[in-house]
Structures are given as structure tokens and as C-alpha cells.
């Protein structure tokens, strides 16, 4: 009889086990702060998409801040300081001003927060970098345009914010490579600050000053599209070839239809994705390289279809 009571008690105890957790805030391993240059272009949307996918896979929280426009360095600095006050485990930083971010670097260092640059390098601090090799990008563009410039040999550059190392490096890479072609000259570098409208203005200026220009290198896709729009709307007889940078759906479509001559792709998604992976590896104490370059390729009208399909398969056609 006693055994019977004992067994019954045991059963009721088992069934009465309470106190389970119900999906309460699943605690992430780390919180990574990200301050990028803006969110107004598909490139940055891709970057953010890569960031959040990688965050989910690695079980980390990602907090993304950005100013309204790529040239708003003050706003970015303000946000950077607020982020440091929040004390994340690491910060991914794409500086609006690569030359003057020393103060921010010091701030992060004094708060013991590891700092990693993404997409755009900083000129000082010797920080780890995840992004495209911008010199190579410039070189690829120069090779493409210079190789096809048979008549006047004039090339122009429409560049983004000068103080951002990504744009600066692309211009530099372009220049250096162009110098290797004796028949080719770089007519000028025009600043459009990664803005569509300003790129149109720059293009208009170029056509005015150098109507026989054969190729224009735009250091971002937004500016390339702006320049192309100006060409279309301006009704010019001589239409130079335009090579842009960045992988975004509207630029790829333009390449497909021949509006752009070439596009040096850097996959924003891959950049964001690898950056988070890099940060997580660093936080977990694994050994990592100083620099992680993402793939860059020159896409032309002939090769673009394949790329479009691959992107569609990966993301379901989303930007």
C-alpha cells in the first residue's frame, strides 16, 4: 500500500512541474553597433540586409545608425558618441569623413570598444577593414574605359565625397592605371558627393567642358545613374561610356539595357554579412586577418544576366 501511494505521488509531482520559460527575451551573445554613411541608396540597404542576416545566424543583436545623407559627418559623429555611451560589444564604422575621425577612434578606444571599418576605410588608426579593395575597383574601371577609348582618349571621373577613403581610393586607382595608357588622359575629377542630382550637374558640366569625352567613371552607382540620366535628357551627339561602382538592382538593369557600359560590382550584402562575421570572430577570440576584401568584378552587358539571376535566387529579388 505504501508503495502504491509513493508511485502516485511521484506521478503527480512529475505532472506538476512548473516554471518553464516562455520565450522570454532570448538573450543574444553580443550587441554590435553599426554606424554607416547613410541609408538612402540600395547599396546601403543591401549592406543592412547582410548585417541583419548575419546577426540572426550568429545570435547577436545589431543596432544600425546612420545620418540622413552621406555627407553629414557631424550628425554621424553625434550618433557615434551616443552609440559609444550605450557600450556595445563592438562597433562597425563606415566614416563619412575618413580624414577627421581621429577623435571618434580615440573615444571608442577609451571606452574599450573594438572598432572595425566597413565599406570605407579610415585614414588613421590602422583599424581592421572589411570591404572592397577600392584601388582595385578604380583599376578595373580604368582598364575598361581606357581599353575602349580609341579617339580622343579623354576620360573623366565623377567622384563621391572626397574625404571618404573609398571614393578617394577609387579615384586614385583609376588615375594610376590610366597613367599606364599613353593615349589616355584623365580630363578631370568632379565632385558629386554621391548625390544623384549633383551627378547630373557634374555630367552636364563635363559635357560642356569636354564634349569629346569618351568615358566617365562614377565612383558609385547612384552617381552613375545620375550621369546616365543627364546623357539621356541632354540630347548629346557624343555619348561617352559610363562605368559605375556598386551592385544594386537599378544599376544592373541599366547595364543590361546598355545605359551603362560597365559596373564594378561590390556586393553590399556580402560586405555587411562578412563584417558581422568578422566582428563575432574577433569577439570570440578567434584569429582574424587585418583586412577582409569582398569580391569585386567588372560586369558588362554580356555578363550581367547571370549576376541578376544569382541575386534573385539568393534574395528573392529584393533589394
Amino acid at each position, binding site marked *: 500500500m505504501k508503495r502504491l501511494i509513493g508511485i502516485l505521488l511521484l506521478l503527480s509531482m512529475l*505532472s506538476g512541474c512548473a*516554471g518553464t520559460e516562455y*520565450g522570454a527575451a532570448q538573450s543574444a551573445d553580443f550587441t554590435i553597433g553599426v554606424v554607416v554613411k547613410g541609408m538612402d541608396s540600395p547599396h546601403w540597404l543591401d549592406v543592412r540586409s547582410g548585417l541583419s542576416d548575419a546577426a540572426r545566424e550568429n545570435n547577436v543583436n545589431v543596432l544600425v545608425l546612420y545620418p540622413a545623407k552621406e555627407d553629414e559627418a557631424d*550628425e554621424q559623429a553625434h550618433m557615434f558618441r551616443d552609440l559609444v*555611451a550605450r557600450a556595445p560589444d563592438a562597433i562597425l564604422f563606415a566614416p563619412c569623413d575618413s580624414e577627421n575621425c581621429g577623435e571618434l577612434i580615440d573615444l571608442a578606444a577609451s571606452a574599450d570598444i573594438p572598432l572595425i571599418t566597413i565599406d570605407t576605410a579610415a585614414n588613421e588608426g590602422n583599424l581592421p577593414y572589411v570591404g572592397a579593395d577600392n584601388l582595385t575597383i578604380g583599376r578595373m574601371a580604368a582598364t575598361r574605359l581606357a581599353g575602349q577609348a580609341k579617339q580622343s582618349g579623354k576620360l573623366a571621373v565623377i567622384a563621391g565625397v572626397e574625404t571618404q577613403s573609398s571614393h578617394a581610393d577609387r579615384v586614385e586607382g583609376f588615375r594610376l592605371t590610366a597613367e599606364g595608357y599613353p593615349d589616355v588622359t584623365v580630363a578631370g575629377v568632379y565632385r558629386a558627393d554621391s548625390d544623384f542630382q549633383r551627378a547630373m550637374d557634374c555630367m552636364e558640366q563635363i559635357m560642356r567642358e569636354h564634349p569629346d569625352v569618351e568615358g566617365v567613371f562614377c565612383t558609385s552607382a547612384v552617381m552613375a545613374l545620375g550621369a546616365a540620366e543627364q546623357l539621356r535628357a541632354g540630347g548629346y551627339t557624343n555619348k561617352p561610356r559610363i562605368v559605375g561602382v556598386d551592385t544594386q538592382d537599378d544599376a544592373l538593369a541599366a547595364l543590361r539595357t546598355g545605359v551603362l557600359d560597365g559596373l564594378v560590382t561590390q556586393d553590399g550584402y556580402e560586405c555587411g554579412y562578412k563584417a558581422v562575421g568578422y566582428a563575432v570572430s574577433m569577439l570570440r577570440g578567434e584569429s582574424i586577418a587585418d583586412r577582409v576584401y569582398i569580391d569585386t568584378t567588372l560586369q558588362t552587358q554580356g555578363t550581367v544576366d547571370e549576376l541578376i539571376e544569382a541575386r534573385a535566387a539568393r534574395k528573392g529579388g529584393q533589394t
Partner: protein
Amino acid sequence: MKLGFRAKVLLAIAATTMCASILIGVIYFRQSQREIESNYMQALWRTMSVTMSALDENVRQAYDTAVALNYDETLAALTAQYDGTEVEQGLELSGYLRQYGQRVDNLRNVYLYLPAHAQTITSEEYHAVEPTAAGTNTWLTDGAAQGGLAPRLVYDGISRAPVYMLSYCSRSGANAPVVSVNLDERRLFYQYLDEIDADGTGAFYLVDSTGTIVSATNQRDIGRLFAIVSGVGADVLSGGQDELAVADGAERLVAAVRSPLTGFSLVSVSDRRALTASLTQQRNFIFGFLFLVVLAMLVPAYHMAGRVYAPVRQLKDAMQKVSEGDLSARAEVHSTDEIGQLGIGFNEMVCQIESLIDDLVSEQMQKKEAELEALQYQITPHFMYNTLNSIKYAAILQGNQAVGDQLTAFIELLQASIRRSGAFITVRDETRMVQNYVKLQQFRYADSFTVAYDLSPEAENCCVPRLILQPLVENAILHGQKQSGEPCRITVSTALVTGTLVLSVQDAGDGMTREQIGLLMQGQKAGKGGFSGIGIPNIIERLRLYYGDAASLQYTSSEHGTKAVILLPATTDPEAYII
């Protein structure tokens, strides 16, 4: 309370069924309860996550706007221009703020606090410029000093109707203008918190990183500290002035989603019982139904128990019959299970008992027969008869009639006593023997006694065991002497009284004491003296043997004499009582 076998079986069946069902029901109920809670909490958590994301976006808009305004060159120019008195400029500033604020959902207003002019420019149309003395609305300057990614909960004292707001203040130096972008707490509540749970079974709170409640259904809770008090079974909702404590565990389910941007937590508190109310109802219904079903099932269970019980009952009945003496009773055996085996064993046992008793009885009978045989005469009667007859005739020829008479009596006695070898003879024959015996004894003990006969004619044909009366008469002759020496008078009587034969021998002697009677009745059964050697104990035993308790021999005695009475059932059938 004494329960029959059948009732016990029924009770066992009912109890087992009820226990099993209740146990299953309880466990299943708990499982379902936990399942429901888990599903509910997961769904709730997903909804809360989505809501929190949307809320986050909204708050981010305010933050971005606050930061943008902080570096806006147009605003800086307008502010520098403004001297504090020009209404037009004030309105222009107000308009600019309003335009900027349009990009923020659920905005209450945008403030531009100008400490230099002790004024606040608001984005509202009707209260564009509010005088704000230094020291009032310190939240503006405090917020400016702090900055940060999370908005602060403030109670606005600037606008005419005070409300709660979530405010981002742009950082600025001392005495510099402060821009504040403020979200309307109530509108945030209605858009985000209120929409989550349509059922109304839960309460939702937005709690900041310090544990202060920033938004809640009941506005009175805003500003209080939110603390979860763990305690199984406790249901404490203590409301001190500053604290709102909710007990976790048995009564309530608490879930929280945290935002990395603001550090705010969206907390839901659900009443566990309300969740499973319908399940509890179902459980109660099922238990009630279960009870009724078990009661209904008692009927077939009763019949089943009866069928199991039937062979047991038969066995019991057979046993009862056997204990009452009927050794022919047997149990019916229909199955080969344990009850059947019991029945078979029982039957065998009774068979054995029956045969054992038969053996015993025949053994006893044989012994008695042997005893009786032993009491027969050893000498062949024919020889004695012839010898005595020749002696008698010799005496008569010599003229001795007395001796002849004696011998005649003796010969008759012998004939009578040896002629019938059966155990039973008629009363007539027995009394004839007694008379012959008396004649002989009177010859021997001349005139020492007289015998009178009171013989009933109806009793003559009754059958009695042989030599039942003679020993009594012998005893009376031997022991009935009077001390005075006078002749003893002996009376022998037979009577038939309502089926009972009464034989009595009475003497008028001195009587016997009780001890003497006792000695007589317990003395030797067979002795060497006397006529037959049969003693009183032998008579008693034979009466018992043949008649059981229906016959008896009794002695009564006083100083006037002794009387011996034999009572036995009257029958004219000599075989009636033969063993």
C-alpha cells in the same frame, strides 16, 4: 461494514477505473494547459517582437530628427537671427520645426528652448512661443546634458495641457538652444501597446532600462518602478506609491521583449487562469461525465462479477451441505480455472471422507457383532438339551416331581435362550424366560422372595433385545433382600404407553443408595456370575447401540424398594433396530 465477495469485486473494478481515469485526466489536463500556455506565449512573443520593431522605428524617427535638427544649418541661422521679440520670426521658427516634425509618427511637438530669451518655440500652431523661465521644465536642460540613444519620459509643463512624452533632447552646451523632439505617450500606447492583445486577458507595459514604467494602460502606473516578485502561488499586486510589483509564477505569465536601440522592454503580464478558463471548464465537464459513465458501467460490472462469483457460490453451498451432514453433496465444476480446481479438490475430499466414515462404521459394527457373538453360549445347545431331558425323565420316573418341574423350567429356559439366535425377541418370549428363571431361583432360594407379574397383553408382541429383562430381575433377587429377612416382593410389569414400551422390575427391599446404584450401572458389563453374565452396563450399552437416545434404563430407589425401568420404542418388527 461486511462486504460480500461480489461487492468487493465491484468496488475494486469501480475504484480502479476511477483512479486510472482521474489520473489520466489530471495529467492530460496539465499537459494541455502547458501546451496552450506555451503556444499562447510564443504567439504573443512573436506579436510583441513585431510591435517592438515598429515602435523602435517610430522612436528612431524621433532620434534621427533630433540629431538632424541639431546640425541643421537653416535652423541655426534662424535661431541666431531671432531676438526673442519678433513675432514673425518666432512663427517662422515654429513653422520650420513643424515641417521637420512631419517626418515623425506620433509626434507630440518639437521644442526649441532658447535660454537666452527664456522662451520655448514650439511646433504647435496655437502656442508657437511660450515663455519659459529658467529653472522651470528642467527636463529640457537635463535631457540636453545627457543625450543618448534612449528617449526620456517627461511630464510636460510647457504646453497648456500637461501630458507624458518620450523626449529626445539634442546635446548642446550650457545656455545654448536645446532642440527637443517629443513623442506623444498616449498615441504611442494606442498605436502599439493597445493593439497587441485583442483578447484583453493581458496587461502590457513599456519599461525603460531603469525599470521605470514609461507607458501602460493605466496612466497612473506611469513613472512607477516595475518589479517582478517571484513566488509560487503568490498573487501580490502591491501598489505602493512608487512601485508596481507583479507576482510571477503560478497565477501570472510574464514575457518581455527588449529593444537594443532604446533599451526599453515591452512586458506582458497574462492571467494564467483566464488563458485556460475554457480548458478548465472542459476538464470539470469531463470529470462529471466520467463519474456518470462509471456509475453506468457498474451495471455490466455487476453482471460480470456475478458470473465470476457463481462457481464460488456453488462451492460454498456444497460445503454448507456437507457441514450439515449430507456427505453426498458435490460442487458443480464447469471450468478448469483456480475455482474449478478448488471444486474438484473439494469433491475428492468429500468422497474420501464418505468412504472413510463408511469404513469406520462397518468396523464398529463388526466389533459389536463380535462382542455379541462372544456373549453366546459356548456349549452346543443340542447336547445340553438332550442331557437335561434325560435327567428330567429320570427324576420323574423316580417320583421327584419337584426336581422334574425345575428341570422342565430349566430346559424351557435354555430352549428359549438358545433357540433364537436373533438379537430381538418378543416380549412374550422374554417374559417366559424370566418366569422360568424365577422358578429356578425360587427353587434355589426357597421362599426368600415372591414375584408378581403385571403383563400387558398389548405389549406381548413387541420386540425387545434378548436378555433385557432377565438381568434386572436377577439383580432384584440378588440385591433386593431385606435385612429383616422377610421375603422380598418383586413385581415385573410390562406396559405399552403411546408407542413406548415400559418394562419395569420393582422390588420392595431395603433400597440402594445412590452410590450403590452408580456402582451397579458402571460395573462390569459381563461378569462370571449370574445367568447370562450380562450386567447392567451391558444393557445400557445395548440400548444405546440399538436405539440411541430413544431408549433408557433408569434406577430409582428408596428405603421401600428399588425400581428399574426400561423405556424403549415399541415395535413389532424384529428387524427394525438391527444394526
